[in-house]
């Protein structure tokens, strides 16, 4: 409404202002997506390859294994990020001395570069000299010195732990912001009715955070699908491809095996999988909000 007066007259100016962004999007996002499609169905010589690369990809068991690993890694990460992040966010909402300091401290993992998280945790997980390996031996959880990152059973949990450590503070900050928008009188009313903290969290806090949590889950999932830094540096997808998530699969096909056509097919596979996931999720989300509002 407010924009109306200035805005309506100058529709050409709006197009001019947004032109740089538009041109950039077209040439560096839309055009590459079409290039992927071209690479998938045409040979480098320009010959039509048809479904050759797609069918080769579908018949390759490693891509399906990689998809499964991706689901495990992203699913596990998001679950624990939300669980820990929300708990910490709610705890930080309580009034206490030193709250600002605690908030700054938990933000450090989120702020430091992904590669630094990878180097530090690799060092802590080191089979011989790692302090975490040592701790697990002392606690009797591991009986011999073994790197957590080289054992098939522990590699994914170990990587998920790093990812949770890195990202939970983001959830906490968003939750903390979301909590400010909850009507405080709801708590007072509930307390008059004799509620306890658990009930307040269950019936007031969590429903009030629904929108924020849904957005955060979406973002964390997308980032999870993108998170190549930790795994590339810490395990390179090993042992036995047990941590080879899809983005790493694409990278390996393109930049280690130099098969650009196959890598393009896998890129589209990754793109389609994520798009399906997001649209299913958004549909589910809009349904659940309709039901409740």
């Amino acid at each position, binding site marked *: 409404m407010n924009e109306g007066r200035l*805005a309506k007259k100058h*529709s050409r100016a*709006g197009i*001019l*202002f*947004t*032109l*740089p*962004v*538009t041109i*950039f999007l077209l040439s*560096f*996002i839309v*055009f*590459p997506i079409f*290039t992927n499609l071209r*690479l998938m169905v045409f040979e480098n010589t320009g010959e039509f390859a048809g479904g050759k690369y797609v069918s080769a990809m579908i018949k390759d068991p490693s891509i399906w294994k990689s998809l499964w690993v991706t689901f495990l890694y992203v699913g596990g990460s998001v679950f624990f990020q939300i669980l820990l992040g929300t*708990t910490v966010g709610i*705890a930080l909402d309580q009034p*206490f001395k030193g709250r600002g300091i*605690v908030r700054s*401290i938990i933000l*450090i*993992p989120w*702020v*430091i*570069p992904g*590669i*630094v*998280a990878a*180097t*530090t*945790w690799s*060092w802590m997980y*080191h089979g*011989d*000299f790692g302090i975490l390996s*040592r701790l697990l031996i002392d606690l009797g959880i591991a009986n011999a010195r073994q790197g957590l990152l080289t054992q098939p059973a522990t590699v994914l949990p170990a990587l998920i732990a790093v990812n949770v450590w890195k990202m939970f*503070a983001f959830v906490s*900050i*968003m939750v903390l*912001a979301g909590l*400010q928008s909850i009507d405080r009188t709801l708590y007072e009313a509930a307390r008059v009715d004799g509620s306890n903290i658990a009930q307040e969290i269950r019936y007031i806090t969590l429903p009030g955070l629904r929108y*924020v949590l849904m*957005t955060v889950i979406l973002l964390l999932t*997308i980032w999870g699908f993108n998170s*190549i*830094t930790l795994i*590339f540096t810490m395990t390179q997808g090993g042992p036995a491809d047990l941590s080879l998530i899809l*983005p790493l699969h*694409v*990278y390996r096909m*393109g*930049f280690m095996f130099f098969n650009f056509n196959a*890598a393009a097919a896998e*890129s*589209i596979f*990754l*793109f389609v999988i*994520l798009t399906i996931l997001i649209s299913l999720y958004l549909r589910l989300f809009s349904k659940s909000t309709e039901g409740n509002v």
Partner: protein
Amino acid sequence: MKKPKIGRIGLACFLTIICIFSLFPFVWMLVTSIKQQPEIMAIPPTLVPKSVTAEHYRDVFIKSNMPRYFINSTIVAAGSTLIAIGFAILGGYGFARHQFRGKILLQNAVLSSQMLPTASIIIPLFIILRSLNLLNTYFGLILAYLIITLPLSVWMMTGYFRSIPIEMEEAAFIDGCSRFGVLWRVVLPVSIPGLVATIVYCFVVTWNEFLFALCFAMDKRVMTLPIGLAEFILEFTVDWGALMAGSVLMTLPIVILFFTIQRAFISGLTSGSTKG
């Protein structure tokens, strides 16, 4: 609000554990970076170093390529941030203050490009940059980073411009100021907090970026810090002391930058999501 005592103690314990959990890897990196080589390999590891040394930092500065990577990272991050902020100011202002056909479509395109998995365009981008002769150049990497930073930057600036009252602009406009003049002389001076948040966002993201740097800048002349550190760790025998020293040096600028403008950044980040 009076809380039961057990609740307060439980809360304090929980947050203490969380703080240790958050800080420990960081502390461990610092401690390792100042230990002498034999102590790094000591079993069991020592929490407090028996003797302190700066040799790993000296190694990083003198023996390794890190100073070069540091400069490369700075050039790329600064260059990309500069272009992103320019585009984001124009685009954000266009979205916030103007109506035009296709605006909603374009805004949705900007927002959904934020959701694009970067790994799915490394192959075509490699081909495009190669054909433009931009592989292994600063400018190639600067352009590629705009893909990552531009969508959210435009979104942040749009949100910020919308929150500014329009009356001043209308007054300036009536006084004969051009559209661009209004943006430059009236809008930008009151948008400093939003600009700072967006600049820091762009800088931090490009400083930390890994995948594009790995694919498009493998030449030592343009290689950035993250790839430099990764090379360190992928070597057959890892010099952990120097690696931790390098990690500390890479982290410092980001942590300092972040904590100086923490408040502005967090409010910029959370404002859009809570208002819905």
